[in-house]
């Protein structure tokens, strides 16, 4: 009896090449949606975009090969430099402010005061609102006689004409951006929760002040999180579009008062779909712009990876 059962199970499940083959086939089939998507919507378009960047092309006619002309024009384009300046300005000013502010709030939340969950929810709430409605709200708050300027007036500070005065448009965006740091706060909070208690306990035995504990334990242990946030933050800031597009409105062709909100992607959009340049739909030019942006982001990210070795602390390094 027992012998028969034994034999039957072995004959059904043992033919050892078949399960592996079946598994491989299933693996490929399950991965197929992504594979098709990758070929059709990512790899194919990327190759084509590289080709397009060497052509003059407005979708209706066939692409016309012009070699490096687009790139050459780009580097002689005044607006390209304005867009680069504005974009770098945002990266250099906004990212440090966001990093410091969100770490500070995360540290406060980490003190485990009553109502912690409530605060967490309140800080994250604005983050779920990213659309046109939220931008309109802030356009209204930052209006020359809007809420913020009226609040400043109580303290006797004359508020600037935020989105009207070219000198204040970008600071306006930074102020506005502070409303959306909740996601960063949560990630820093998760990082803080991951720091082993023993480190603090050991430092307390040595009589370290809380300032020293923050400086010598918390920040080094948090540095991988900070690094991640800086890298993704820069990539995100390089692609500002919706806010700038809505704030500048349709009335200007290029980007807000004195082109002060002409960011890289906004300019790219204007070249590809907007009214800038001869005849519009300058797909070749816009494709060249996209590739230059790609290279810029790549170089900055690699540079950060290289710099990270100096300041990012990974416990496993055994440093």
């Amino acid at each position, binding site marked *: 009896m027992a012998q028969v059962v034994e034999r039957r199970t072995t004959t059904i499940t043992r033919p050892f090449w078949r399960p*592996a083959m079946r*598994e*491989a086939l*299933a*693996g*490929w*089939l*399950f991965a197929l*949606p*992504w594979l098709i998507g*990758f070929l*059709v*919507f*990512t790899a*194919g*378009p*990327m190759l084509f*975009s590289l080709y*397009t960047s060497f052509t003059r092309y407005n979708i209706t006619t066939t692409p016309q090969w012009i070699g490096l002309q687009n790139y050459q024009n780009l580097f002689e384009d005044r607006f390209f430099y304005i867009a680069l300046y504005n974009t770098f300005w945002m990266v250099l000013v906004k990212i440090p402010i966001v990093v410091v502010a969100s770490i500070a*709030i995360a540290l406060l*939340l980490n*003190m485990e*005061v*009553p109502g912690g969950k409530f*605060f967490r929810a*309140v*800080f*994250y*709430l*604005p983050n*779920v609102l*990213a*659309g*046109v*409605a*939220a931008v*309109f*709200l802030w356009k209204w*708050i930052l*209006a020359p006689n809007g*809420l913020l300027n009226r609040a400043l007036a109580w303290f006797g500070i004359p508020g600037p004409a935020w989105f009207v005065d070219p000198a204040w448009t970008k600071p306006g965006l930074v102020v506005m951006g502070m*409303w959306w740091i909740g996601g960063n706060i*949560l990630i820093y909070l998760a990082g803080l929760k991951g720091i082993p208690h023993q480190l*603090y306990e050991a430092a*307390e035995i040595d009589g370290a002040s809380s300032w020293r504990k923050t400086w010598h334990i918390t920040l080094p242990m948090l540095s991988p999180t900070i690094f*991640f*946030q800086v890298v*993704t933050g820069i990539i*995100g800031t390089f*692609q500002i579009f*919706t806010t700038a*597009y*809505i704030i500048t409105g349709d009335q200007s062709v290029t980007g807000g008062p004195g082109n002060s909100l002409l960011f890289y*992607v906004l300019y790219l*959009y204007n070249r590809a779909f907007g009214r800038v340049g001869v005849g519009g739909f300058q*797909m070749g030019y*816009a494709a060249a712009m*996209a590739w230059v*942006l*790609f290279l810029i982001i790549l170089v900055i990210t690699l540079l950060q990876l290289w710099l990270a070795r100096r300041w990012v602390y990974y416990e496993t390094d055994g440093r």
Partner: protein
Amino acid sequence: MAIAVTPRENTQPMRHELRPRLRLTPGKLLAWLTLVTLSILFLIPFFWMLSTSLKDFNELFSPNWIPERLMWENYRTAFSFGMWGRWWRNTIIITVVSVLGTLLSTSLVAYSFARLRWPGRDLLFSLILATMMLPGVVLLIPQFILFSHLPAFGFQGSRNWVNTFLPLTVPAFTGNAFYIFLLRQFMRGIPMELSEAARIDGASELRIWWMIILPLTKPALAAIAIFQFQGAWEDFMGPLIYLQDERLYTLQLGLRQFEFAAGGAPAWNWLMAASLVVMLPVIVVFLLFQRFFIEGVTLTGMGGR
């Protein structure tokens, strides 16, 4: 017992454990007050929005928090512009289809990468990771060109994909690198014995995926559904580029249409009323599923935008 505890009482308070949570030190009180102030600052914009939406034109530039007369009819006026009914319908269709597509595709693909062994798997997975680094803008132009050549066979009256919902929904069915990565990590945490046992019983991979893996992956799937819902509902650039016919607009495009609808300067009270209503579904979903939002951020690291 008491003897063991007493020495602790005399040492410096331990920050992290063994303390009653709610005991307030001066430092904690200060932190708490700061947090209260900050959260009021974070909430003020919402109140200002609500307050403005209920104001009369004459009162628009007054600092009153509670309008002298609550103009509920602002909401009706706001929605008498444009084709709000259609824009709602369009937004809901696009959002629902793209959420379903994302859940289906990412869970299938993640299953393959997490639980099946096949030649080329690791190479393709590093390719997925690589696409995560790719800035979305790089694909903007070539994808537009691609969609303007793909035949739509008269779907929504268009010959190609431009000016249809296809570019805003179909790509969701091919997965998303971020979510695939997240789900794969999640699925690898499920003991392999579970699927081995099912396999020996003769269950197909599709059955194992549906009956065993998906139920155990619910928290991650919920987080993904919520993020995709939020992203699709609030997407502006996609509809802006692909939808030209006003009848196909989404709420986001409609809202923008509305800014100068009152002729010249924006009518802030109407605009705030309309904006608030467009935001509302996302706010409600947030309040209902807060936990998944918070978990999702922690899981995916999608903090900065």
